[in-house]
């Protein structure tokens, strides 16, 4: 049972740093973050980092980390600080719930990375395929093609 505790790390912000890259690992960005960590608290995780501290200091560390691999590093706010007894599995006696959204988005985040890499390329925006394809299901034309293939 969690005993009475005051609000932890009041006045600070916590941010997640996610890395999804074939050439940079969470350990790489952790080393990079420690170079300029100053007064912030850095927690290393399997997906990247959690950085806690004053907002301007956290932003400074994140901008330094981003330079490593700008299109493959993603950052978002977190409400709870790392190790918070209400969330940390060390206090809860087992795996903690959550991360469903992150798990879902990390499944296709490489498409966003490609978008970021090509954002300044002069090529025209490709035709949006999603608007072309029939969202209601299999089109009659496509069905006829499949029947002919099978025949």
């Amino acid at each position, binding site marked *: 049972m*969690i005993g*009475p*505790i*005051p*609000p*932890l*790390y*009041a*006045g600070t*912000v*916590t941010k*997640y740093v*996610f890395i999804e890259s074939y050439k940079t690992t969470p350990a790489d960005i952790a080393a990079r973050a420690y170079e300029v960590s100053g007064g912030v608290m850095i927690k290393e995780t399997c997906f990247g980092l959690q950085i806690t501290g004053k907002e301007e200091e956290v932003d400074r560390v994140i901008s330094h980390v981003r330079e490593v691999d700008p299109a493959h590093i*993603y*950052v*978002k*706010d*977190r*409400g*709870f600080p790392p190790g*918070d*007894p*209400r969330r940390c599995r060390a206090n809860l006696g087992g795996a903690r719930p959550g991360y*469903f*959204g*992150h798990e*879902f*988005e*990390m499944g*296709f*985040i*490489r*498409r*966003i*990375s*490609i*978008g*970021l890499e*090509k*954002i300044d390329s002069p090529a025209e*925006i*490709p035709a*949006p*395929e*999603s608007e072309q394809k029939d969202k209601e299901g299999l089109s009659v034309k496509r069905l006829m093609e499949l029947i002919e293939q099978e025949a």
Partner: protein
Amino acid sequence: MAEVFIYPATSLILSDLVARFGHKPLGTALSVRERIQTAGLDSPPLQMTPDDAKKGLRWAAVEVPSGVRGRMSLFGPLIDRAEAAIIVRNPEFAFGCMGCARTDELVEFLIRQKGVPTLELDYPGNEEEGIIFVRKVKEFLTRPGGLS
């Protein structure tokens, strides 16, 4: 720098893109952080309290279930602050109980009713759609005479 409400409010992709293009993303984490860093009667401070269902009355009627009103006490203040919004249509991971579903509908309704500039998108299904997704977000956030 404008404050941009993102929906789903926990989205990593939207939060990152909004911050990357120079604006402040308004997501659930901000509301949760405010609650757990504010000292109160509960120790430790809870992220949700029975009072939140009352605070939610500002955005939802009294006959609306308390689950919706409690959620609105998190999202409502963010919508009030929002100067723009980016919405992903029908995100799969936001699927949940009726409380979640009705809150989602109410959030989208309130954003439209507020009349702030809004960008609606679908999650990219392939690499080309990924390029389109990022470019649309960038255009929306950096257009001349748009968000300041």
